[in-house]
């Protein structure tokens, strides 16, 4: 692998056909991911934020080719992932890993922790059983499950929520991935346990961050603020804003981003009760029949005639990309 590797996502689309019946194949699609492009360098951290149905999880799956894309390309390790055949893809798998939302559901309930972890090494390395054993113990220790011997023979249901997510993280980092995507890594966990897992992820990043790309997917922009340098905001399958996290939170450009940030509750009654609220109206659009033009226009306080018919392209505002006609003059 090259030293300055990167992940480049180009015009990625994922349309799910809406099947009506087995005779008539309908032409309707759910455009879960609609023409998304971005790139990150080695050492980069990207947060993808969006509400349910915004397509953020689908995007992650498409990037890893866990589901087949409709079109576009993803370059990673100087290869277009979408061009690889099954065999090549499987060989690349250990380099790109994912942590899933619900740790209980993402562990096979009939396998013990040791089976789950050794499987990874058996698939991709030629280590002996003894070596694997040592690696598994190290791994468990690294994710904070100590003493590791205690956890080897447990089934997922015998672990607490936080411990399960640690096992998932161990599985994902077992073979030192270059790309790690975490999909809502803490939202299924209890509040007091969330901090532990966020810190574990941050530690892993601090330790090997310069050598990998980190993507965090969440509906919680606060979580992304604490973990990611850059942020991509998604709405109804499209990217609406992309830029540095801090500046997005400080001065959101897209009306949707503004609404989103204003809606985040602040755990401080004095600020919460005095802050100026942006009026919020409507709900995210239906995925099957999204509104024409800019998908956000029915909820947008600044809506113009143009927004109802044309899909806004990306405008560069300083170092940010935003998809809104308010910035057309830039």
């Amino acid at each position: 692998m090259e030293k300055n590797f990167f992940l480049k996502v180009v015009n990625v689309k994922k349309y799910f056909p809406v099947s009506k019946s087995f005779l008539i194949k309908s032409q309707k699609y759910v455009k879960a991911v609609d023409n998304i492009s971005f790139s990150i360098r080695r050492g980069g951290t990207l947060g993808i934020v969006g509400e349910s149905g915004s397509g953020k999880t689908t995007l992650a799956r498409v990037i890893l080719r866990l589901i087949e894309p409709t079109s576009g390309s993803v370059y990673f390790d100087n290869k277009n992932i979408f061009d690889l055949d099954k065999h090549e893809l499987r060989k690349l798998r250990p380099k790109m890993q994912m942590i899933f939302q619900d740790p209980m559901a993402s562990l096979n309930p009939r396998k013990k922790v040791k089976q789950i972890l050794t499987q990874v090494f058996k698939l991709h390395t030629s280590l002996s059983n003894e070596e694997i054993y040592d690696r598994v113990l190290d791994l468990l220790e690294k994710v904070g499950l100590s003493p590791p011997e205690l956890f080897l023979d447990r089934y997922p249901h015998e672990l607490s929520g936080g411990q399960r997510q640690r096992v998932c993280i161990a599985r994902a980092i077992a073979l030192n991935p270059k790309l790690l995507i975490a999909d809502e890594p803490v939202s299924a966990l209890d509040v007091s346990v969330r901090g532990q897992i966020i810190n574990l992820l941050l530690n892993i990043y601090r330790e090997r961050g310069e050598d990998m790309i980190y993507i965090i997917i969440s509906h919680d922009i606060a979580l992304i603020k604490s973990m990611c340098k850059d942020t991509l905001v998604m709405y109804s399958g499209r990217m609406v804003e992309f830029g540095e996290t801090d500046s997005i939170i400080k001065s959101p450009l897209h009306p949707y981003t503004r609404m989103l940030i204003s809606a985040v509750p602040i755990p401080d009654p004095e600020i919460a009760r005095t802050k100026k609220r942006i009026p919020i109206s409507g709900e995210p659009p239906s995925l099957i029949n999204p509104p024409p033009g800019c998908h956000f226009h029915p909820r947008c306080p600044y809506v113009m005639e143009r927004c109802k018919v044309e899909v806004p392209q990306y405008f560069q505002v300083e170092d940010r990309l935003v998809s809104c006609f308010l910035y057309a003059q830039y």
Partner: protein
Amino acid sequence: MKNEKIKKNFLLKSGYLQFPIKKIILTQMNSRIFAGLIIISIITIMAITAPFITWHPPLKTLVGKPFTIPNNHYLFGTDDLGRDIYSNVIYGIRTSLIVGLSSVSIAVIIGTLIGVLAGYYRGIIEDFLMRITDMTLILPQFLLALVIVAIFGQNFQNIILAIGVVSWPGIARMVRAEFLSIKERPFIEAAKAIGLSDMKIIFSEILPNAMPAVIPYIILQINAAILIEAGLGFLGIADPNVPSLGLMLNTAQQYLMNAWWMAVFPGLMLSIIVIGLNLLGDGLVEYLNPRLRKR
């Protein structure tokens, strides 16, 4: 620190197909499962030891006077041809169990294959297989089996084959449904993400998780097979060279007015087998349904 014993234990490869039998028996033994297991065990023992617990060959005529009322020697009496009903009932259990097990084995093989194919691969394969399955599922199993045996000839193998051939659609549907739901669970995606092959995913990740839901259904299907065999026998479709509870009831039908024992004992035994299997199957269904278990 590294305990040798743990290490050894770790290196022992453990099997994938683990049905929590031990757990069911030891911890949360459901009273239905327990009752069902007891009945089925007794029945099975009787079937296996048939030659030792009977004293007349089952199909031999005139071992006693025709229409003997049950007594010490002919426990269940004799029939119109002077055959010992007790022997015939015990050997009849054997027939029922053999028919149930072998025809359902056929059905399980066909059903699992079709269910796995349809559940794992989407698109045209699934559409085609499921349409066939749905159609066969609606058809009356019993009548189809009857037609098959009537046309191909009334012998024991044909009866087993016919029942097997009509019993698979339910199993296929069940397997597919389980596959579809398990396939959507994140741990399968996780398995893909670490690079597991399709075959490994099917056999080591999905199938072990699908089986617990399918097993009680298979037990109930054995029950259905036994009843189909008995029903066919009752209509006179049976191999005359094999003792059959259904066929005995067919004969009894003509003599209901005067030889009640000819109907009572074979039917009673049939009912007991069915009750046992129903208890076991229902108990397992209930045990495996977390929502019902809560109560």
